[in-house]
């Protein structure tokens, strides 16, 4: 989205886009019935994949269904799972937030730093969540007010926030957190057998599902992702919605940072390094369109399960942990290629036709 100044130019371009939209099977604001059907198919595929990975896990290891393993499954993927939710919303709106892993790292570092400086833990948690929201706000303002592409902005802040994290903690590793908090890294939520992070993920997924699929805000996110110009003309405050999404992303990134710190009982600046790739891979595997406009929380939820269980099953069979990147990378490719094969072709052709118009 360009800034305010060139709006007339955008308007002229919007006509062309609208014509294109008429020809293309692209839905307008909100998912159409046709879109939903298509996604039911993708989610059915994911559900099948889920059954497959569970069978794989059971078949490969007698340890798969033990309570220890099920707890560990949630523990080791909880933060990634939580971060897929805001990532999904941002991607549906046609943007991306790669800085979320550094938001996690910086939040973790700040938790450690403030704990070293004898702050009380509840105050630290609140401070860090506010900080996360601010980090998201910076991303949001850079993207919407300066009209910069979010890919570039958040690659920048990915590095920037990680750098600040390193300055905050340096080589120090803080690990003397109180047992009341670090117990979330070893105990299940009573009565569930699931880790705290897994339960938080389920709750947030339900909230995200309601927001995205049953509120005006959610519909506006889909509309913006499908066609930002058209959304603007239907009265949606595109910039405000996008900024809100980045703030939510930062807030959730900070929450993941707090959980990560307590789970591993460790605050260090390198925490969470590399997780964003898993987050993006899962979101795309969940059927969220990388170009925006389409996706469901159910799809992402299923993708989280498929991804986590597959990694866990491989781990139990002594698949080298260093090679787990193969799983992430492979899923990422499958997720992009399979559902978008048709789209990619169409878009390629359309882009070529619209070349002088450029990206936005």
């Amino acid at each position, binding site marked *: 989205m360009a800034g305010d100044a060139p709006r007339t130019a955008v308007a002229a371009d919007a006509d062309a886009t609208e014509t294109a939209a008429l020809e293309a099977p692209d839905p307008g604001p909100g998912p159409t019935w046709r879109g939903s059907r298509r996604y039911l198919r993708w989610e059915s595929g994911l559900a099948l994949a889920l059954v497959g990975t569970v069978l794989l896990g059971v078949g490969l290891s007698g340890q798969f269904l033990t309570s220890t393993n099920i707890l560990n499954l949630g523990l*080791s993927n909880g933060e990634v799972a939580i971060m897929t939710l805001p990532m999904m919303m941002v991607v549906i709106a046609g943007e991306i937030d790669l800085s979320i892993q550094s938001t996690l790292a910086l939040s973790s570092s700040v938790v450690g730093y403030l704990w070293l400086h004898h702050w009380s833990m509840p105050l630290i948690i609140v401070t860090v969540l506010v900080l996360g929201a601010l980090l998201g706000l910076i991303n949001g303002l850079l993207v919407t007010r300066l009209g910069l592409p979010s890919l570039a902005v958040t690659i920048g802040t990915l590095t920037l926030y990680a750098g600040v994290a390193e300055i905050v903690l340096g080589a120090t*590793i803080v690990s003397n957190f109180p047992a009341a908090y670090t117990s979330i890294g070893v105990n299940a939520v009573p009565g569930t057998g699931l880790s705290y992070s897994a339960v938080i993920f389920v709750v947030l997924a339900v909230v995200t599902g309601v927001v995205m699929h049953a509120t005006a805000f959610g519909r506006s996110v889909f509309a913006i992702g499908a066609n930002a110009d058209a959304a603007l003309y239907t009265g949606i405050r595109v910039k405000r919605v996008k900024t809100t999404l980045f703030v939510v992303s930062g807030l959730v990134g900070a929450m993941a940072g707090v959980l990560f710190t307590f789970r591993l009982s460790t605050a*260090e600046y390198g925490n969470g390094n590399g997780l964003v790739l898993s987050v993006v891979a899962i979101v795309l595997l969940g059927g969220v369109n990388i170009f925006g406009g389409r996706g469901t929380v159910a799809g992402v939820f299923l993708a989280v399960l498929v991804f986590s269980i597959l990694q866990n099953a491989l781990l139990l069979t002594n698949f080298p942990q*260093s090679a787990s990147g193969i799983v992430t990378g492979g899923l990422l490719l499958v997720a992009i290629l399979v559902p978008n094969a048709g789209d990619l072709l169409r878009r390629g052709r359309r882009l070529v036709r619209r070349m002088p118009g450029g990206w936005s």
Partner: protein
Amino acid sequence: MGAVMTAGLGMAPAATAAGHPLKKGLKVFVVPKNLGNSYFTTADSVKSGGALAALKALGEQGQETSGTADSPSSQLPVIQADLSKGANALVISATDPTALCPTLNAAMKRGVVVVTYDSDAPACRSLFINQASPQGIGAVEVDILAKELHNQGQIAVVSASASDTNQNTWIGYMKTELKKYPKMKLVSIVYGNDDTATSTQVTQGLLSRYPNLKGIISPTTVGIAAAAAVLDTAKYRGKVKLTGLGTPDEMKKYVADGTVQAFALWNPASLGYLAAYAAVELASHSITNAKGQSFTAGKLGKFTVGAGHTVLLGPPFVFNKSNINKFNF
């Protein structure tokens, strides 16, 4: 090494007088600080006669697992995965004295045996297998450097990670030993995180920040090798002395060309071997972790549990030009 005296016992089954016979088929996970670290490869592998060799000889299911970085956030998920895999015992070099504790204590409560080796987590293990007394290690490195520097000049330390229990303990004893040499001044401690590139960078940083630096101690095998590579130029060779803890294979070249005159270490393979043996003894209820309990660790002979639930491998060993070629690890 006192243990060598009783080495004649060989691989005889090690049922102690009072204890139960050793169980077979135990799942024992060996968790070094990180993978791809030649010190731990030696400590753990079958080929070098380390922890996995002991486990194989005892008929256990041994496996080495760890993360790729020397940090608790890299090591802990692996430990959790090992517990998922149904571990009976863990043999761990702790990346942090306390960060692993919630997980390890929960595991011990469920009956998993936790033995630390190389780097301790005192609050959450049954036994610590100590490679050499920390005083001995800290003192020997300072003494080697003092001799080479004729007791004077600026020196610095290139350590691993700032949270490593063993590194910090040794550096503490180095400071104590330095009081014997009032003309030697410790000007800086830098951290290479047991990563070659980082260790190289921080060593270069030291040399440019302290032009009068006369000596470097690197009490970690990755650090000393990286520092030696930096010093191995006409500008620094022999002018900035280097010692610390290194492996003979990595240091042979630098000892031969005079970059390094002497350095210390224990035999990491013996350390891993002893730790694995102790873990199996505990998991079989053949011994407890009480002071005075003793067991025979195969080819290494007899060991006794000392104060603080620790077992001491032996005194550090100094490698120099005259003996280094006898060692291969």
